[in-house]
């Protein structure tokens, strides 16, 4: 009668549950998306409709907006689980916590960043970006936003014990977001000036894989610490 649970089962169950929860709270799904769109819209309003200027700074605007939108929703990653006791349930399984943490982060990325990826080309067009540059922007967002969620996870786990961790979270996380922002903008710069972008993209890939393998470990350790 006893049926053991496989790691793959547990992994997909965590993602599935978080997606289901996001679907039940779908009104909240709009928040980071609306924030993303509004921040980007503010720039042409403030700078005026000067096409060459907008074209020049559009990738930076979109990237910074995506970064802030990700920061805005990252706190939800473990907060609810910590408050209602599901986190304890997740620790007390035969599976390594770091793998389940990775599942939670992937769930968060799917919920908060993937919608941004869909709307980013539209924003690029609004700012008069050229189509091939929009393509590069999308590539950098695709490689970069998972890293934002992965790194943010560590900081969220560290600040769980605090009642108001929001400001501290931003201070902890933003400096760690800098490398990915630099590589993304240099890739886009290279594309705009006609240089090869493969080097920058390879670097972003490397950062992504490094983050996938390494960040779940400190996140899991910090989560265990926050439970004590």
């Amino acid at each position, binding site marked *: *009668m*006893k*049926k*053991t*649970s496989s790691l793959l*089962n*547990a992994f*997909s*169950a*965590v993602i599935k*549950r978080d997606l*289901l*929860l996001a679907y*039940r*709270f779908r009104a909240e799904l709009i928040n980071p998306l609306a924030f993303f769109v509004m921040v980007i819209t503010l720039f042409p309003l403030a700078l005026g409709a000067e096409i060459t200027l907008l074209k020049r700074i559009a990738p930076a605007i979109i990237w910074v907006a995506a970064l802030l939108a990700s920061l805005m929703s990252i706190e939800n990653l473990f907060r609810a689980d910590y*408050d*209602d*006791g*599901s986190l*304890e*349930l*997740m*620790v*007390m*399984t*035969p*599976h390594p916590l770091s793998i*389940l943490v990775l599942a939670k982060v992937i769930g968060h990325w799917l919920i908060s960043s993937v919608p941004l990826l869909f709307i980013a080309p539209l924003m690029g067009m609004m700012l008069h970006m050229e189509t091939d540059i929009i393509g590069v922007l999308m590539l950098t967002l695709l490689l970069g936003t998972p890293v934002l969620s992965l790194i943010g996870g560590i900081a969220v786990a560290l600040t769980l014990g605090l009642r108001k961790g929001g400001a501290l979270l931003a201070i902890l996380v933003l400096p760690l977001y800098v490398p990915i922002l630099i590589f993304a903008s240099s890739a886009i710069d290279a594309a705009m000036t006609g240089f090869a972008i493969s080097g920058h993209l390879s670097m972003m890939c490397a950062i992504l894989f490094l983050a996938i393998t390494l960040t779940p470990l400190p996140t899991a350790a910090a989560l*265990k610490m926050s*439970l*004590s």
Partner: protein
Amino acid sequence: MTHLNKLEAYQLSCVRDDRILFNELNFTLTSGQVLLIEGANGAGKTSLLRILTGFRRAESGHLLWNEELIENSVHFYEDAAYIGHNNGLKVALTAQENLRYAQALSSTTLTIDDAMAKVGLAGYQDTLVRLLSAGQQRRLALARLLCTHKPLWILDEPFTSLDRASIKLFEQFIETHANQGGLVIMTSHHETQLPHTLMQKIHL
């Protein structure tokens, strides 16, 4: 649950806010036994339970699960279940979705429908947990124990917000679990009647 399980505590002590809650606590619990932890509010019952789950480190002493330190044991979290003050339920999911999630994370024995029928929640499978009463939510949390395979139950005030009939029912579940070779550690303010099991008591 054929093989024997054993939880041993050696010289546990816990300090909180410079106050010693307990000191040099020793006990051994083997399959079939129930450990009841009693004490006034603030005596350290929950702290002790959180030490026993490995969430919290004891100031001194160590805990062995089947002769392995629990922080090194690969089996401890496979074998232990904990229900604290929070039920660990997602209120935006249905009762069934919550149990299915719990089953996906651990080994399972009973089906969800059977477990829900046992705790008297048959027919509530598709009800959102938010719409259940506090007592029903507690019962659902306890149903999670029944539908996952965990020899060691660590329960913090399991009878909170349960009515008298449900308390009786759960005392029976605890007895059955112990008689099938399980181990139970619990705190309770209620007079707990478990005449058919080997019960140890610790008064903090």
